[in-house]
């Protein structure tokens, strides 16, 4: 016997799911933009498939990044994903023993114990092949059920899993999660009842079956149990494409495409849609998002992505994000939440067409220099930073020019963050022209916001773009300036755009290490908090920003350092208003500890640097 009518809910659901997935995946791939299609073609040929497959195994099945987050959380996800995967693979192999090695219809391995009652193998007879499979299949089922128990515990004790908040589910998600949670207990019941009725089964199902048979009419119960198991599977498959569990198939596609070099662009496209569908709403991002402190939980990435998926997010969700990147850092799927938010803003703001034609008349007299210093808009609002930089540059003896001494054109990053990249391109063009004309080989800026855009969006061949923390370190290391260590304690705050945004964590620390004693803080480097002043957010008011600032200050100043050092004028300005502790930019620290270099030393150093 290889068919029974109860397999229909499962089989029908499976066929439906496969059809929906086929249509969706085809539509996504067909609407990839030109460069995306090209990358897809290249990627398929140049061997990127192998590392991608490895990542699929490590992430989609083993959930390595989840483990990094929290071991219990990782185990819970792994037991479901990897356990179910093993159940499918091993079930297939097991079913072949009984069908003479043939490929079976898809429902056959799933419901094998209904079709085959192998009484030859007692529970622990591991030395025969069927006995081995019986054991391993029960073991895997137990493995999955342990994950289910953890999932239930997580509902009431999410803190054990490292989560303060868990995601509030939508109605479709509730259907899907209920059917998913029923699948494995129902399988256990169906197999146990059958084992009880026919004296078969492995160590788990046999034991349970014998137990049930003692007081239940298992010979009447097992058939309805198989029906229930099949129905749970069917309901899960049918609800999957509309629930968060769509992430299971989509994430696999995402990993491959990402390995092929495809990224979410400046406008919403089919790849950003794949990223949106890959969000499992696991909720890891919700806790790390500082928007919670401002009472704007609905703008946290999990809910924002959900709104994008099921319709349009409201203006508040679009605008309310500091783009600090903390969510991206912890996301187990590594969804580029920042790019998606900016792309959504592009949609939102595309009616607006700023025009900077007036800049054509701006034609400052040509200055030539080796080093071009750019304070940036925010740098101009913190004159102390600007002054410190000018003092250091003068002391270093470098031939420099202060590009925006008299105020200048904005770098374009604030426009980019609002999704207005066409307008930003105008500013980028203007600044590129100004920099190229100066003939400078090194461009130094005080503002990480500027640094990021100059580094990533500007095309300036032959010009090295540096943040002042990098440049100052270089000056100190080459001996062009000298600093002393006064032994005071300091805490260094990683600005979002410099740290997570540009991956510059070490240079500021190495530089500071020569002047002060750095205290460690609870959340630094990748986990650093946003100061709350971000130009990424468009809508938060000052009161809300101050809440975020104060929470960040509490973490930063826990060790009661003498000074709080940062490398961003905006962070400095934001923090300065919220604490009695002295807040300094790294350039100010250098400027304060600057030692006059003797002339001979200086010329020697210049020669070496050559």
């Amino acid at each position, binding site marked *: 016997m290889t068919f029974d009518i109860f397999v229909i809910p499962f089989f029908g659901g499976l066929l439906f799911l496969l059809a929906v997935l086929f249509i969706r995946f085809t539509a996504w791939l067909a609407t990839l933009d030109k460069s995306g299609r090209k990358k897809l073609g290249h990627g398929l040929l140049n061997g990127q498939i192998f590392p991608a497959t490895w990542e699929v195994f490590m992430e989609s099945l083993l959930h390595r990044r989840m483990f990094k987050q929290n071991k219990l959380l990782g185990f819970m996800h792994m037991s479901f994903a990897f356990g179910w995967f093993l159940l499918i693979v091993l079930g297939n192999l097991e079913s072949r023993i009984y069908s003479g090695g043939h490929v079976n219809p898809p429902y056959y391995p799933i419901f094998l114990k209904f079709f085959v009652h192998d009484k030859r193998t007692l529970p622990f007879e591991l030395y025969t092949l069927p006995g081995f499979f019986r054991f391993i299949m029960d073991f895997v089922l137990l493995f999955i059920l342990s994950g289910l128990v953890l999932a239930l515990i997580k509902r009431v004790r999410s803190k054990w899993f490292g989560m303060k908040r868990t995601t509030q589910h939508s109605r479709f998600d509730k259907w899907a999660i209920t059917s998913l949670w029923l699948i494995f207990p129902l399988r256990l019941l169906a197999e146990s009842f059958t084992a009880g009725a026919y004296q078969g089964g492995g160590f788990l199902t046999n034991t349970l079956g014998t137990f049930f048979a003692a007081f239940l009419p298992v010979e009447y119960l097992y058939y309805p149990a198989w029906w229930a198991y099949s129905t749970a599977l069917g309901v899960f498959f049918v609800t999957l494409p509309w629930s968060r569990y769509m992430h299971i198939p989509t994430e696999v596609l995402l990993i491959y495409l990402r390995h092929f070099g495809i990224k979410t662009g400046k406008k919403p496209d089919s790849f950003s849609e794949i990223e949106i569908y890959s969000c499992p709403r696991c909720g890891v991002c919700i806790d790390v998002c500082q928007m919670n402190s401002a009472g704007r939980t609905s703008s946290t990435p999990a809910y924002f992505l959900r709104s994008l998926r099921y319709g349009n997010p409201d*203006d508040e969700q679009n*605008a309310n994000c500091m783009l600090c990147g903390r969510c991206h850092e912890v996301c187990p799927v590594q969804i580029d939440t920042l790019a998606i938010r900016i792309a959504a803003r592009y949609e939102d*703001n595309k*009616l*607006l*067409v*700023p*025009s*900077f034609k*007036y*800049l054509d*008349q*701006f034609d400052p007299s040509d200055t030539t220099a080796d080093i071009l210093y750019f304070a940036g*808009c*925010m740098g*101009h*609002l913190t004159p102390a930073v600007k002054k410190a930089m000018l003092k250091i540059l003068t002391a270093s003896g470098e031939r420099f020019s202060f590009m925006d001494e*008299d*105020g*200048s*054109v*904005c770098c*374009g990053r*604030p*426009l980019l963050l*609002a999704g*207005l990249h066409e307008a930003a391109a105008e*500013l980028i063009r203007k600044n590129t022209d100004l920099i190229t004309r100066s003939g400078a080989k090194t461009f130094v800026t005080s503002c990480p916001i500027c640094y990021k855009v100059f580094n990533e969006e500007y095309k300036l061949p032959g010009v090295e773009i540096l943040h002042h923390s990098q440049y100052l370190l270089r000056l100190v290391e080459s001996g062009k300036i000298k600093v002393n260590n006064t032994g005071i304690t300091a805490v260094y705050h990683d600005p979002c755009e410099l740290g997570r945004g540009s991956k510059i964590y070490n240079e500021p620390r190495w530089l500071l290490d020569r002047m002060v004693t750095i205290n460690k803080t609870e959340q630094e480097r990748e986990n650093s908090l946003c100061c709350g*002043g971000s*130009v990424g957010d*468009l*809508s*938060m*008011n*000052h*009161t809300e920003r101050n809440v975020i600032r104060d929470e960040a200050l509490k973490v930063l100043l826990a060790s009661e350092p003498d000074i709080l050092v940062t490398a961003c004028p*905006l962070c400095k*300005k934001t923090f300065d208003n919220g604490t009695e502790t002295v807040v300094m930019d790294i350039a100010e620290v250098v400027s304060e500890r600057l030692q006059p270099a003797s002339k001979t030393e200086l010329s020697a150093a210049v020669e070496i640097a050559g």
Partner: protein
Amino acid sequence: MSGAVEKVRFGFSVNKDRQIDYDANLKNVSDIVQKAEPTFNLCISCGTCASTCTAGKFTDFSLRKVILMVRRGETKGLENEITKCMLCGKCQLVCPRGVSTRNLILQIHKALKTGAL
């Protein structure tokens, strides 16, 4: 000698009428903006924003003027004016009243495009 009296030009003229006709002006832009960015109401027209403005260095763009015009409903020509903003956010940092100026600009933009009909 001719009898015609020649007008003497002193280089001065009479100002155009500066009376604001609130009945004729569009007030719904202001309503839409207030709803979309409530901090709009906090503005005291001190002009700090205009004095620090990056775009203001190159043009006569002034956020203070823009806000006054929106409040009065004098929206003619405003759309053109507002395209000059680079959205750099200096005004937001210096604003003594905590107006979310960047969003304000975007919302005025949007209200003019979509709501002012």
